[in-house]
């Protein structure tokens, strides 16, 4: 059995058939996961430094030169690396006196912080499967982003306390701006809200809980929805970027709702983390520094602050190491432009936009397929990864250790 690193579900029931060392057939991988497996054979990165093809050793030396020459290097990415690579990355940031941040900074970070700090009740996906009878997909579309979420854990499977199947045992709702594939599956449980309408929707639920009339949505429908929530044996909310981006600084409103629901019945929250080991990075950095992201090691001391998040740090950092991420693609163009103006070192299995403008590119093994290690699933459960095929490139952890030796 192989583990899929296509998303943060880390499906561990993948069967792979090899022919002459190459993946020939797979079982149980979804379309997205299959894409990840097939990416072994497309757009692989090759070692480069200052515009020329070099060998990996030279690329590593040049990377070390750039990073140790920088006053405030930014070490960014990490959510597509193993726990071991993340540890090595934090150690490197410490040694360089640099800034370390991950994709959660402009993704699920604010919500994940509450979960990791124990300020938001949470549970595992196995709890969801066994006990979760009332589910809310909120600003998330697992069908598209985590295709096996509903079939492996949340809606369709039989669980310990839920033996009859989804039609009788579980009630699912979706709150979303878009009538997504997930919204279509939950059908009558779909609430369409306007962009930015999440706060109003939360207030409407709170009103009904207070015995008042909701200000938005059909009143009868809202009352019936809240009645169902109040009857949950164990409820779960799966918030996606839709909710996080819509609430931004008002995430306390969501905390308030979760707290209110928990006065009556247990309601847990599992953020829909995107990349396979974002949770792992947040947890690891938190354990070492007290911050889940946006940490600076300048002057030998770990300090957490927004100025160390990639969005702000691009104004102050004078070099960047980007690991397993493509911020030039995923950041708004205005921020990508800032990254293009400083020397960048990229470590990645694949060619991408950030690699194309980087001064140094170090190709790495595709984790879970060419290199082993461990990762934390979106719910914090540790999953061991073992290599499936032999690759030509060193793992992230190995490259980072080599850079650390020479900086």
């Amino acid at each position: 059995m192989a583990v899929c690193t296509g998303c943060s579900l880390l499906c561990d029931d993948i069967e792979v058939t090899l022919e002459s060392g190459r993946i020939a057939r797979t079982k149980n991988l979804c379309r997205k996961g299959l894409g990840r497996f097939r990416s072994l054979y497309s757009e692989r990165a090759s070692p480069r430094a200052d515009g020329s093809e070099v060998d990996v050793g030279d690329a590593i030396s040049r990377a070390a030169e750039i990073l140790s020459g920088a006053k405030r290097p930014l070490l960014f990415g990490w959510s597509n690396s193993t726990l071991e690579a993340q540890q090595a990355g934090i150690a490197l940031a410490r040694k360089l006196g640099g800034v370390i941040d991950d994709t959660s900074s402009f993704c699920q970070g604010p919500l994940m912080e509450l979960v990791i700090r124990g300020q938001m009740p949470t549970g595992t996906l196995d709890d969801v499967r066994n006990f979760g009878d009332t589910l809310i997909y909120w600003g998330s579309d697992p069908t598209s982003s985590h295709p096996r979420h509903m079939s492996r854990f949340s809606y369709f499977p039989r669980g310990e306390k839920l033996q009859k199947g989804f039609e009788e045992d579980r009630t699912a709702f979706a709150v979303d701006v878009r009538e997504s594939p997930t919204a279509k599956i939950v059908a009558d449980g779909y609430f369409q809200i306007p962009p930015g309408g999440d706060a109003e929707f939360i207030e409407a639920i709170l009103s009904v809980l207070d015995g008042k009339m909701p200000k938005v949505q059909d009143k009868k429908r809202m009352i019936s929805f809240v009645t169902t929530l109040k009857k949950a044996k164990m409820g779960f909310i799966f918030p996606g970027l839709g909710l996080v981006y819509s609430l931004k600084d008002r995430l306390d409103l969501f905390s308030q709702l979760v707290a209110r629901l928990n006065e009556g019945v247990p309601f847990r929250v599992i953020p829909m983390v995107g990349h396979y080991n974002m949770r792992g990075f947040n947890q690891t950095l938190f354990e070492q520094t007290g911050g889940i992201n946006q940490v600076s090691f300048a002057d030998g001391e770990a300090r957490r602050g927004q100025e160390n998040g990639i969005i702000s740090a691009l104004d102050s950092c004078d070099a960047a190491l980007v690991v397993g991420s493509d911020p030039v693609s995923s950041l708004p163009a205005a921020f990508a432009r800032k990254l293009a103006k400083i020397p960048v070192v990229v470590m990645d299995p694949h060619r991408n936009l950030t690699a194309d403008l980087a001064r140094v590119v170090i190709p790495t093994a595709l984790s879970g397929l060419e290199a082993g290690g461990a990762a934390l699933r979106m719910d914090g459960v540790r999953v061991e990864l073992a290599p499936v095929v032999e690759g030509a490139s060193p793992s992230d952890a190995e490259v980072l250790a080599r850079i650390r030796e020479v900086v």
Partner: protein
Amino acid sequence: MVGAMEIYQLTPKINCKKCGLPTCMAFAVALLAKEKNIEDCTPLLEPKYEAKLKKLREVMAPLASASETGLIIHDEKCYGCGNCVVACPVNVANDPRGSAIGLGPKSDKVILMVEDGVVKCLNPKECRRFGPNRIMCNLCTSTCPSKAIEFV
């Protein structure tokens, strides 16, 4: 999916009875039910119906791949999410340690499983839509996010 009316439009519409049926409409219905083959309509093989024959073969092609229960899988639409694999009552009954609890099938008696990112139909005779006591179960189609499974 193609209906009898659409198929009828592609027949010669001359009610010649050469296929053994009284009308071209009856032939269209029989074609859809797989009781007749396109070639049973001999006039259609004449050059003047060449365009109709070509079109008819095109619209009938997906039906040829339908399993005996009439299940068609549109590979290009499938997410590989496995909702159908886990929701299928036969999979659940035959595979309590695999698909019933959300995992990939551990039994070879399942009807549906995901291979290379796309759902495949195995053991169609186990489907509840098959045989004399068949029931019109539709859990695999109603749980599909993209209408990738269809019954004809």
